């Protein structure tokens, strides 16, 4: 009995030593053009010196799921290891004609639309595999969008911890309050991924959330 207790004690210590090194899958979800890649780039640049993907004013720039493994985020002397997963924006409609407004050729616009639809399907498939999810919303847009509610509903059903980020707070039209009012049960962090504003608070929340995963 005493030997069993002794082995369990060491087992626990051993497991805890390696538990801290586990790579948590951190997903970035949200509607198109909310700034998911900008935020993922900012984090990667801060901690690895490299960016994850390209950003553009044209919606659906990210059309395949992008990964960055072994990103060690350091905050106030604590370190956590993440696998960052940047996903294509989820939408309920994609019209190639919308891309023509950005002076894109019809053929390219049609190809972009096709890839974007496949990207949405891929994003949805990945929902199952996340440990922690950051929902990135554009703080200048109306947050009462069914896509946002559906993604959050799915994550809640899967018991995956969620953090809501209100991006683009550097813009005058932005409103964190609107997002807080739309999602009163969640913590909302206002940031500007473009200018790196308020990222300290974001990292603090990520560390708190990671502990729940």
């Amino acid at each position, binding site marked *: 009995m005493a030997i069993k207790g002794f082995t369990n004690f060491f087992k626990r210590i051993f497991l805890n030593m390696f538990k801290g090194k586990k790579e948590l899958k951190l997903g970035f979800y949200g509607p198109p053009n909310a700034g998911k890649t900008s935020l993922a780039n900012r984090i990667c640049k801060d901690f690895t010196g490299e960016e994850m993907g390209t950003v553009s004013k044209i919606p659906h720039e990210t059309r395949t799921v992008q990964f960055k493994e072994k990103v060690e985020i350091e905050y106030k002397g604590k370190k956590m290891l993440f696998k960052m997963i940047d996903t294509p924006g989820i939408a*309920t409609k994609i019209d190639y004609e919308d891309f023509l407004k950005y002076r894109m050729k019809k053929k390219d616009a049609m190809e972009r639309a096709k890839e974007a639809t*496949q990207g949405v399907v891929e994003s949805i498939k990945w929902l199952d595999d996340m440990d922690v999810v950051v929902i990135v919303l554009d703080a200048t847009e109306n947050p009462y969008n069914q896509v946002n509610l559906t993604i959050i509903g799915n994550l809640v059903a899967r018991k995956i911890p969620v953090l809501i980020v209100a991006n683009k707070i550097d813009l005058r039209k932005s409103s964190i309050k609107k997002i807080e009012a739309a999602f009163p049960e969640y913590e909302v962090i206002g940031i500007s991924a473009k200018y790196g504003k308020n990222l300290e608070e974001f990292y603090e929340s990520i560390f708190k959330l990671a502990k729940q995963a």
Partner: protein
Amino acid sequence: MVKKRLGKIKGFSIQFLPYAEIRGLNSDERIKKILHLVLENNILFLQGRLESSEETRLIGDTMAMIGHVRGFKGVELAVISENGKEGFFGKFRSNLVSAIAGGDIGAVTIIGPATIVKEIKRNPKKIELLLKG
């Protein structure tokens, strides 16, 4: 003037689908039924709501259909339900009603083809269904 504005819409109908119509169906059949009605240019008012996994599946299937069905550009979707502000006893009552009815029948799901419905605009005070002109 109004006639000219409406001229671009080829024709649509608004259909109310009681929850009883989908209660006995499995997820595949529910999504298939809904998308079939939407493809026939119906703006659907469904009593109740789908499960969250069915809602994502609906989005996924919609995406898979764009490019395969001529002229289909996706859907506009909105679910109107009590947003958790009813308190503990209110939640208990609605959960009980949902359990008995077999779904959240207090909610309404609006879904229409994106070629007809431009936007379902929502804020805490009102819901507007904007059609393409």
